[in-house]
């Protein structure tokens, strides 16, 4: 534990002692509402252990590293195409002979577009950010 001695001057010992007392007191008298929220936060975190991980984030050349960018590009393309079709669906397109031809296209609901774009669970993105941060820590160390 504490193998190094803290400063021994009486004044510094007093400061350390008072600080410990104040901080310990603040922990034992923590608001009930905050305690409940901390419990919820803890349970949510532990629940994350029960969800499977299916990628190897530390391997830069692993295909899973590129799923997110590729998925985003594909999803964005789908959204752009969908919006284009939706917009153009309300505008009749004339044929070369000058006779208007209405294109029967379905309007795509915005919620459907979100579903089309969403390729992974939110935790997937969260994991990548964390493991990229871990890689950075490795580089620093």
């Amino acid at each position, binding site marked *: 534990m504490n193998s190094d001695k803290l400063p021994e001057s009486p004044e510094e010992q007093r400061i350390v002692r008072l600080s410990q007392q104040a901080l310990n007191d603040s922990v034992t008298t923590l608001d009930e509402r905050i305690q409940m929220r901390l419990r919820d936060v803890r349970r949510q975190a532990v629940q994350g252990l029960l969800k499977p991980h299916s990628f190897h984030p*530390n391997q830069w050349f692993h295909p899973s590293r590129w799923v997110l960018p590729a998925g985003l590009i594909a999803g964005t393309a789908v959204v752009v195409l969908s919006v284009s079709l939706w917009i153009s669906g309300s505008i009749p397109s004339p044929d070369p002979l000058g006779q208007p031809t209405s294109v029967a296209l379905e309007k795509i609901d915005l919620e459907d577009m979100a579903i089309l774009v969403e390729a992974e669970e939110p935790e997937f993105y969260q994991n990548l950010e964390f493991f990229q941060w871990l890689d950075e820590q490795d580089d620093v160390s």
Partner: protein
Amino acid sequence: MKLTEVANFNSIRGEAVTDINIPDTAKSLDRFLASVERRAFRMAVLATQNQEDALDIVQDAMIKLVKGYAGKSEQDWGPLFQRILQSTLNDWFRRRKVRQRWQAVLTLAGFGNAEYDEAEERPDAIQQAPARHSEMPSEQLASAQSMAGLEKALQSLPLRQQQAFLLRAWEGLDVAATAVAMGCSQGSVKTHYSRAVHSLRVELEAYR
């Protein structure tokens, strides 16, 4: 996935695969996190002076520990959690600096809130605390004021000094462990700590 199924967690650093029993690990993690959550929250409140931000930071740190280090030995969880918590606090401060710079730029450009006040964004945690010492004997009141002054002094420390002081004086970590938690050298820990003690001594003079 069945709870009784043993999961193979591939290493995140090329180490050997660790087989863990998920239900047992989940229980152990829950116990560990329950033992550290309040102190972690207090540390985060002292650093951010905002309870909501502190809760977010503690949640982030817990999630990172669970998702990244559940397969590690239980005795490693303490130092790992401290390292993750302090790093998450550092990240929070960095993001806040960037946000403040952008807000300053936007304000100058006429898009921001000219009356933006940083102090308003982070309510004083002492002011948020319920008044517990309204009717007390003078000696207890003096002691309570001293404690309130000390807490305020701790809040006002620069982040690195605050981290070094709390980890050494409150968590009881030695210099080496504190250096690992803070991601700095042992010399830096000693410097930050001594400056923190000096600042606190000066602040507490008013309450003698």
